[in-house]
């Protein structure tokens, strides 16, 4: 039946034909089957296909192999029925942890089992006996997966580390534009991008420059988040681990990393809630008891995030807001256009001085933020405050980069209040912050003066600082947040005085922040950041700041932190570019990152230990941290995806 030539045929025939491109020869395949006979045959077949084969008769071993060498394989073929671990379990782990294509195989050809494989994320399901013809083509799954990643990453200008040869990459890139079947978020991404480009040119450029490493990301829609919350609640917040949550959510395409990242954010978010109530009981009370309870500290916080992010051109915040809203069960109200408009009129920048003066009055007279709030002219209700945050956001979004300059001017005017704001701070009753603020205040004010006179970025910074100091309490950020950060800020200021450069400022950030996050060894090398980017970020922040200052003039440090966050992110971003660390950011990743950042910063100071705990507890955190830097640009995109249209009103 067979002639000698054919007997040897597969070796040459399978991989042959492409002399120029050896692919798929060398494809690294991990094959897992408890049946030694099948395993032996599969190994032989795969080798005949010129793949590099690692065989394994236990799922547990396979998993440890994969974990030990995450980039050591291109694809996994696994039997379904195995004694030590169900093949689907392995599939899940692999999908979540390594994000490798997994092919399931079984002699069981029942529809239910095949379907289970598909829903668990298997890229293919082979019925035993497996034919070599089927194995000849498994490389397509590798390419497809890579290409899907490309589709997302390519749009954001990222570079995907590819295991294959250069030709494959090229091909993928070429195909990327034509591919319409990729990740879900692509569509939103595209549309959002258009929108974004129309709005913010500078930021757009920024993105192009800095976004080099992204992977497809999950967009945490409100529905998805609610699923997530439901799972967490069912498991119990303390016992909820990413894997279980993922299992409960059972969302195809969602990876454990996605969930882990989100969970981290969610935990921080919860902690923040708790911390807020602890630290800022008084102030928050005024908010909570305000006319519109839905505008708790959180909502105001959200508003701020939005603002800051929007300003920075990293708008992930909206989705964050949505998430938070969903989590809180107050989906609405965050972004009310009407609100914002009103607020805007109320808080117009025209007479910052007046406001500042009033603020100072208040500060001197009242000891608590509540007073501040109430004292704020115009009889602003807490609600309005929250709205104010949103308003700003929108403003900034609308204005884009163009406004920055003008606002800077205003902010410089605002600087005046800074002194007052600082003085108010002690009265806030938050010790750590007070510490920070008080210590930092004098320098700042000095700086402010100098800087305000200059048009330099440094000046903006100082402005920002002042304004932000007052804001913290309202935002319900734990003021305690960043002792280290505060230090860094001061450093910044000093350095800026000396050199007056925005870059310097960032540099100052780096050191302190690094101390806090030991995980960021790379930061020290950050010298090669784009000055422009940094400037961008800050400027945008300034916008925010200005708005905020106009509105509140007295509250501090939140924005400051935010700035820090941004700065850090910028740094991270830059740093990571070269190192190309794990970029498993998905969809809402940037948003999450942002929020996490803020949250973390906030939590840090009082609870530096907390921070460390987090890291220790979960490697995820470190991974997240690493990732956080990257998403900067992406955030914008994601955010766009959520653009105003999607915001619950």
């Amino acid at each position, binding site marked *: 039946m067979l002639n000698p030539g*054919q007997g040897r045929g597969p070796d040459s025939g399978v991989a042959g034909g492409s002399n120029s491109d050896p692919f798929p020869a060398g494809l690294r395949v991990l094959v897992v089957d408890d049946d030694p006979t099948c395993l032996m045959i599969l190994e032989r077949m795969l080798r005949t296909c010129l793949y590099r084969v690692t065989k394994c008769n236990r799922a547990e071993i396979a998993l440890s192999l994969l974990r030990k060498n995450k980039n050591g394989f291109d694809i996994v073929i696994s039997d379904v029925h195995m004694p030590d671990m169900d093949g689907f379990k392995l599939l899940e782990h692999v999908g979540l942890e390594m994000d490798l294509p997994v092919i399931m195989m079984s002699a069981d050809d029942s529809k239910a089992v095949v379907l289970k494989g598909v829903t668990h994320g298997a890229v293919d399901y082979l019925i035993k006996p497996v034919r070599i013809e089927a194995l000849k083509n498994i490389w397509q799954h590798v390419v497809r997966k890579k290409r899907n990643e490309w589709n997302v990453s390519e749009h954001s200008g990222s570079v995907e580390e590819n295991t294959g040869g250069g030709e494959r990459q090229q091909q993928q890139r070429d195909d990327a534009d034509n591919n319409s079947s990729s990740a879900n978020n692509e569509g939103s991404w595209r549309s959002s991008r258009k929108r974004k480009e129309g709005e913010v040119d500078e930021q757009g450029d920024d993105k192009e420059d800095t976004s080099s490493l992204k992977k497809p990301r999950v967009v945490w829609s409100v529905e998805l988040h609610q699923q997530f919350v439901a799972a967490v609640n069912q498991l119990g917040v303390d016992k909820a681990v990413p894997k279980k949550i993922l299992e409960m959510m059972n969302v195809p395409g969602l990876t454990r990393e996605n969930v882990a990242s989100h969970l981290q954010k969610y935990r921080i978010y919860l902690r923040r809630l708790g911390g807020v109530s602890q630290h800022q009981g008084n102030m928050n009370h005024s908010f909570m008891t305000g006319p519109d309870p839905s505008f708790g500290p959180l909502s105001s916080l959200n508003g701020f995030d939005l603002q800051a992010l929007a300003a920075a051109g990293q708008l992930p915040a909206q989705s964050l807001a949505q998430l938070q809203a969903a989590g809180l069960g107050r989906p609405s109200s965050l972004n009310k256009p009407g609100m914002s408009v009103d607020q805007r009129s109320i808080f117009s920048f025209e007479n910052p001085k007046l406001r500042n003066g009033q603020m100072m009055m208040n500060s001197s007279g009242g000891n608590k933020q509540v007073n501040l709030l109430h004292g704020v002219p115009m009889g602003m209700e807490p609600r309005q405050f929250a709205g104010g945050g949103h308003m700003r956001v929108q403003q900034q979004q609308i204005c884009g980069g163009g406004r920055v300059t003008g606002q800077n001017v205003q902010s410089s005017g605002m600087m005046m209040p800074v002194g007052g704001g600082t003085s108010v701070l002690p009265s806030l009753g938050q010790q750590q912050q007070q510490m920070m603020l008080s210590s930092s205040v004098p320098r700042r004010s000095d700086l402010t003066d100098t800087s305000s006179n200059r048009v330099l970025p440094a000046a903006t910074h100082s402005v920002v600082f002042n304004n932000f100091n007052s804001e913290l309490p309202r935002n319900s950020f734990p003021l305690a947040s960043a002792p280290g950060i505060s230090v860094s800020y001061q450093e910044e200021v000093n350095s800026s005085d000396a050199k007056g450069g925005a870059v310097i400022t960032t540099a100052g950030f780096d050191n302190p922040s690094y101390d806090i996050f030991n995980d960021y060894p790379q930061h020290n090398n950050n010298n090669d950041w784009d000055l422009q980017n940094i400037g961008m970020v800050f400027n945008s922040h300034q916008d925010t700041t200005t708005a905020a200052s106009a509105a509140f003039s007295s509250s501090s440090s939140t924005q400051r932190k935010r700035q820090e966050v941004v700065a850090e992110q910028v740094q991270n971003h830059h740093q990571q570019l070269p190192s190309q660390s794990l970029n498993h950011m998905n969809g809402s990743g940037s948003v999450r990152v942002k929020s996490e950042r803020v949250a973390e910063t906030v939590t840090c100071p009082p609870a530096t230990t907390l921070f460390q705990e987090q890291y220790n507890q979960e490697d995820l955190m470190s991974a997240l941290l690493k990732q956080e830097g990257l998403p900067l640009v992406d955030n914008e995109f994601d955010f766009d995806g959520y653009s105003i249209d999607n915001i619950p009103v």
Partner: protein
Amino acid sequence: MGKCMQGYLDEQFMELEELQDDVNPNFVEEVATLYFKDSARLINSIDQALERGSFDFNRLDNYMHQFKGSSTSIGASKVKTECTMFREYCRMGNAEGCLRTFQQVKKEHATLRKKLEHYFQLARQAGPKETARRSK
């Protein structure tokens, strides 16, 4: 694959033969040896499970699933058919059917073993060059 094997082996076995080359001249025989060793273990397990008389059909089905999997992998068509029957009885909870079919499984398994041993013996006698020329 010789005529004597007709009906006992299917095209999967021929696939295995195609995988045999100069680098792996005894691949098919090695696979078959492994198969019989492992399937003997499974048969033993099933025997014990059946002897218990408790008829844990889930367990029986699991064993037979493995047995069937490796049998199909080497193209043992007749064994495979009996395995399928056995699993069908498991699903129906038909203990008597399981017992009866299992005897068939063992019988076919033993028959195949004999035939394959004979077959490999012939192949060895024919020499390495001839092994590649095996055909019906």
